[in-house]
């Protein structure tokens, strides 16, 4: 699980265009408030799909899924359990 969180943080660091350090960001912190644009969230989504070999279904393509490290982690866990 911590390895998954590390990978999520690395992806946010590379693709999220955050104004804050993704490595030290609180898991519940709002990523959009931290500078992630709608375009950046698309890049984050595609990078997550590539890293974890999953595909986010339409139902998960919404703001609150990519809102925080914690919500992304929960969504990935749900996809991996399916």
């Amino acid at each position, binding site marked *: 699980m911590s390895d998954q969180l590390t990978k999520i943080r690395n992806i946010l660091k590379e693709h999220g265009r955050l104004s804050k350090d993704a490595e030290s960001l609180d898991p519940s912190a709002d990523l959009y408030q931290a500078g992630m644009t709608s*375009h950046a969230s*698309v890049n984050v989504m*595609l990078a997550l799909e590539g890293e974890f070999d999953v595909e986010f279904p*339409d139902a998960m393509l919404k*703001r609150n899924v990519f809102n925080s490290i914690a919500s992304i982690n929960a969504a990935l866990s749900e996809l991996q359990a399916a």
Partner: protein
Amino acid sequence: MQLTVKSLESMGPTTQNAAPMEPGSEEASEFRARTLRVGTDLVQVSRIAESIERFGDKFIRRLFTENEIAYASSSAPLQAERFAARFAAKEATIKALSLSDVGLDWKHIEVQRAENGACSLKLHGAARAAAIDAGVREASVSLSHDGDYATAVVVCLSAPSPNAPSPN
């Protein structure tokens, strides 16, 4: 050639530029009973180009319909700005219809281009359902790009609500 905001202004008065209505007029009361929604988005063209380079077809096909891809790809030098403007239009629509918490495919929002360059919106799937639920009768889009920036504005007009309070 894309219909830019500048050329829209030259085509005559729009709803936004229409002459003010008399407060007690029938026209004014009908206008007040409707709901006007607006959304806008600004996108950096070079970052769209980076996404295309990084993720390739996966990025393009996830966001854009076949028709949008065909038009944007018809000119390699203009591809990134065309995709950028269209992505801005999709995000502007999401804002106008408050769809950010509705899970939907970006391809459910399509920018169509007429031969004269005028752009319009076509909604599919969940986006269309949401627009119908909101009583949207008309939706208009305007795209523009200049240098490294592309932008879009979407305006939606909903039908008068039968429960809307009567004026005065």
